[in-house]
């Protein structure tokens, strides 16, 4: 099977800082892949680079056979590629419904939009109950659901999740992970950046471990959980 997305020696630099240094990633259709590593390892920068929010200084990003390295952010949602960003970043001054509506901004087909609403409201009944409420008045867990729902509104083929469990109560975290499993059944390919390593590896097919902007290990989720590479990556040992 060919890759849905492929990163070929991609680097990301912010002025003098090299956040990502020539990494290679390859993700197949239908996989859940965890991207792990300590703070500052370059995980978020990698996701942001894929969606055009961080500058790619070298390398190539190929999505479904198309070179999207230089594509601007607004052209990616129509291709079926979107990000649920770190810190949720829902539109606080917009209603829940308007947040979701903007998630489907690039979708022209009315029937498809209607189906997307139904799917999101079915996954998150709470959002339907709160649809007139402002995004900023939701609890942290509900905001995370809104951020996920908003990302799902464009019916993505590849969904990038940046720390979906950040700052949430354990019971909400479990709900979020159950949902990720459900999305896999629905055929969504997912790249998951997560601090909660054991839960991430539990759900993922494969994992990549990053340290100082490089990939230091990759393999099956099961073999990564057993190896010491992970500990070393987090503790900074070479």
């Amino acid at each position, binding site marked *: 099977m060919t890759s849905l997305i492929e990163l070929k020696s991609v680097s990301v630099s912010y002025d003098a800082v090299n956040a990502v240094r020539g990494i290679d990633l390859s993700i197949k259709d239908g996989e859940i892949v965890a991207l792990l590593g300590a703070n500052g390892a370059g995980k978020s920068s990698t996701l942001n680079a894929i*969606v*055009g*929010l961080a500058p790619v200084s070298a390398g190539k990003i190929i999505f479904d056979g198309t070179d999207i390295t230089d594509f*601007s*952010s*607004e*052209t*990616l*949602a*129509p291709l079926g590629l*979107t*990000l649920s*960003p770190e810190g949720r*970043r829902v*539109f*606080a*001054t*917009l209603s829940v419904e*308007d947040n979701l*509506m*903007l*998630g489907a*901004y*690039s979708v022209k087909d009315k029937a498809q939009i209607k189906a997307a609403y139904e799917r999101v409201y079915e996954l998150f009944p709470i959002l339907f109950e709160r649809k007139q409420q402002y995004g*900023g008045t939701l609890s942290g867990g509900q905001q995370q659901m809104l951020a996920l729902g*908003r990302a799902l509104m*464009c019916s993505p083929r590849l969904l990038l999740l940046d720390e979906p469990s950040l700052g949430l109560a354990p019971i909400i975290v479990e709900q979020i992970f159950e949902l990720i499993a459900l999305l896999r059944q629905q055929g969504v390919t997912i790249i998951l950046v997560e601090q909660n390593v054991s839960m991430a590896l539990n759900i993922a097919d494969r994992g990549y471990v990053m340290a100082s902007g490089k990939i230091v290990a990759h393999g099956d989720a099961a073999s990564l959980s057993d190896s010491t590479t992970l500990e070393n990556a987090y503790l900074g040992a070479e």
Partner: protein
Amino acid sequence: MDLFLQQSANAVALGGIYALLALGLAVVFSIMGLINFAHGELMTISGYVLMYCGIAAVPFPLAVILAIGAAILAAIAMERIAFRPVRGSSGATLLVTSFAIAMILQMLFQNLISARSQPVLLPAILSESVTIFGLIIGVNKIAAIISTIVMLIFLDWFMTKQKTGIAMRAAAEDFSIARLMGIHANTVIAGAFALSGLLAGVAAVLWVSQRASVDPLMGFTPVLKAFIAAILGGLGSLKGAVAGGFLLAFIEVYLSAFLPHGMQEFREPIGLAIVVLVLLFRPNGLLPAKTLAAEKV
């Protein structure tokens, strides 16, 4: 009491114009972080279109549409030619760019049209007045009040019910994430400028219909006032722009009506002192924008 009500009506009419102008500044600021000081020149362009239409005996309603349309087109052209190349630059760069555009347009008006004030032919009915509940109110003032209300209702509908308006609010809050949804930066920014042009055009028609003249610097003073109003209300906040516009107009009109004769020359400083006083207690303005801290492009 009569004088008080009379002056209040005047203040509402003037406040409406300030509110429309302040809204135009706020719409662009909330998205781009730019205070467009060339906003006044959009007004002046509308004023000259009204003048030429008067000379060419174009029916007044058509002249109004042409004048407003000219301001919208000029605003879009301004964004495309001058602001797009410097998009994402520092606030100072954007500010200086807007001053440069204002200067260039003022010079063009002076050299191509006339440095002096030109009369604008208006329908006679605008200078008449009617008596409502014992108050004598000019038709032009009533037109200003009604137009303001219509524009505010339209703007509210556009920003809360229309997809483009909602996308503009989202972009004002978090531009990167809005782009991630597939909202094109160019669409949103050009839309904000078009909207500010519409507001400047309507304000210009109302302004000119109370003065019946136009000169190259016509837009400068009202836009300066609108800038004060926008700060008073909370920079980048649409509700704040409206509140600030009306508050500033009330302060000005009441001071000019009720300040003793000997004190009249201190009218402007006293008015501005009140503004400073309000800002001392509410440094972010009356109704600050929730999204003020958001990243601008």
